[in-house]
């Protein structure tokens, strides 16, 4: 298995796994604490629309997905904040409309769209050097953002009304974290695919949450679990010749079950 590390494609995959693991560990802790898992699902599926449109126009699919993810994230948050629409209905609309747009444009694109399945279920082994650099940059921004702002970020998430009585610049912070959530989801799609992204944003956090009830510790432990779990999953998928995304998800599930049983026994 060690000889795998000599291949560039595997080095890229490993690097990307770690970078995405760290990003999702941090972003996911915020998502889970703020109960935004369903919103994240909506953003993920909406981005498929951008992916399809980009295919049709001959642009980079990742770019299309990012534009749609950002648009969906801000629309859902802005429209539900205004209380004109119910949040879960909005999520449903973006979720299905995004997928519909994606399917339609891919159907309209002449020829076969070969990488499509990898966007649905992820394939980390096809990651390019350019994507590793993108992941590195995003991971860096997320780490710096959380290191600098994690306290106000979680304080505002805990009690927004109270924070507003303190006249803090919470809009800027919320715009920042919303953009990072959308971008993190898009990059994670390469690893886990649209359908499995949610597991990255929830399972390490659920495991960390079993042991720690404070956001500071959850941030650290979710990040560690996210990295360790996905590295184990990646090696297992390579060794057993299984799809990487699904193997990583099942690896998280296994850790979750073991931790749950261990915790219960205690």
């Amino acid at each position, binding site marked *: 298995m060690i000889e795998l590390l000599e291949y560039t494609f595997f080095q890229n995959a490993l690097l990307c796994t770690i970078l995405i693991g760290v990003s999702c560990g941090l972003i996911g802790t915020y998502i889970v604490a703020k109960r935004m898992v369903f919103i994240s699902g909506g953003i993920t599926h909406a981005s498929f629309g951008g992916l399809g449109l980009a295919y049709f126009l001959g642009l980079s699919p990742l770019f299309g997905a990012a534009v749609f993810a950002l648009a969906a994230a801000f629309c859902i948050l802005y429209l539900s904040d205004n209380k004109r629409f119910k949040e879960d209905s909005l999520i449903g609309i973006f979720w299905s409309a995004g997928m519909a747009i994606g399917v339609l444009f891919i159907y309209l694109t002449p020829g076969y769209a070969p990488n499509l399945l990898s966007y649905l279920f992820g394939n980390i082994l096809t990651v390019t050097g350019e994507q590793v650099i993108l992941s590195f940059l995003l991971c860096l921004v997320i780490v710096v953002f959380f290191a600098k702002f994690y*306290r106000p970020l979680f*304080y505002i998430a805990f009690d927004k*009304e*109270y924070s507003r009585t303190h*006249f*803090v610049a919470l809009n800027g912070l919320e715009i920042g974290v919303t953009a990072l959530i959308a971008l993190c989801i898009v990059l994670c799609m390469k690893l886990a695919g649209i359908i499995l992204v949610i597991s990255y944003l929830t399972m390490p956090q659920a495991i960390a949450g079993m042991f720690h*009830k*404070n956001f500071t510790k959850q941030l650290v432990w979710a990040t560690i679990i996210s990295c360790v779990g996905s590295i184990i999953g990646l090696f297992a998928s390579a060794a057993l010749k299984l799809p990487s995304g699904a193997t990583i998800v099942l690896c998280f599930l296994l850790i979750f079950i073991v931790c749950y049983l261990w915790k219960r026994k205690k």
Partner: protein
Amino acid sequence: MNELLELKGITAGYEQTVVLRDVNLTIREHDFIGIIGPNGGGKTTLLKVILGLLKPFSGEIVYHVTKQSLFGYLPQNSRFDSKFPISVKEVVLSGLMSEKGIFKGYTKADRERVDELLKTYGMEGFGDRPIGELSGGQMQRVFLCRAIISSPKILILDEPSTYVDANFENEFYAVLGELNKTMSIVMVSHDLGTICSYVKTIACVNGGLHYHESNLITPEQLKLYNCPIELISHGTVPHRVLLKHDGTIEN
């Protein structure tokens, strides 16, 4: 006394409904204003306008001091997620947000202030507990600590008597008296007894606002502004003096 904040001709409400009309109110240093009025009369709306949570339809709010550490706020029922991963210490620490903004870090001295406050309010040893695991009364003490850690200029309390547990209630009002030496207090309450024994002035809110430069509630006041009549009909509101119709004082 120095003025801290002034509401001038405020008309406010939600969407198409006007709840408050042409309200004027000045909050000065060392004030202890009790706000009374019937349900739906606009007490909470008034607090939201003061706190800057609700933008009024018209009128203006004049701040005579800086906004930093201006308000300490104890909400009526904190509608927070009880599963939110936050410890008691962090909740109290979040009361320093106004001072810290989003860029400044929290220091060891800040955390010591938290420990000290928790000790003062009988919550020593609870610092690392998740906030959701506390009882209602304990939570309220923690939220009071959060409200006062920044030594705000104005402490705003929304119906504190509805959640303070019986053991803490008397102590709680004594604490308010003590805090009033260093900060102004604005308290909404439907509990007339507590309002009268501690507050210095009274504002009756029912669509409009009527300010009284004393803490005596007169029957006229209650009738005139449609405050709930049963508040006086029992006649034995504790710890206070009621003015009779003809102006004489009766215990």
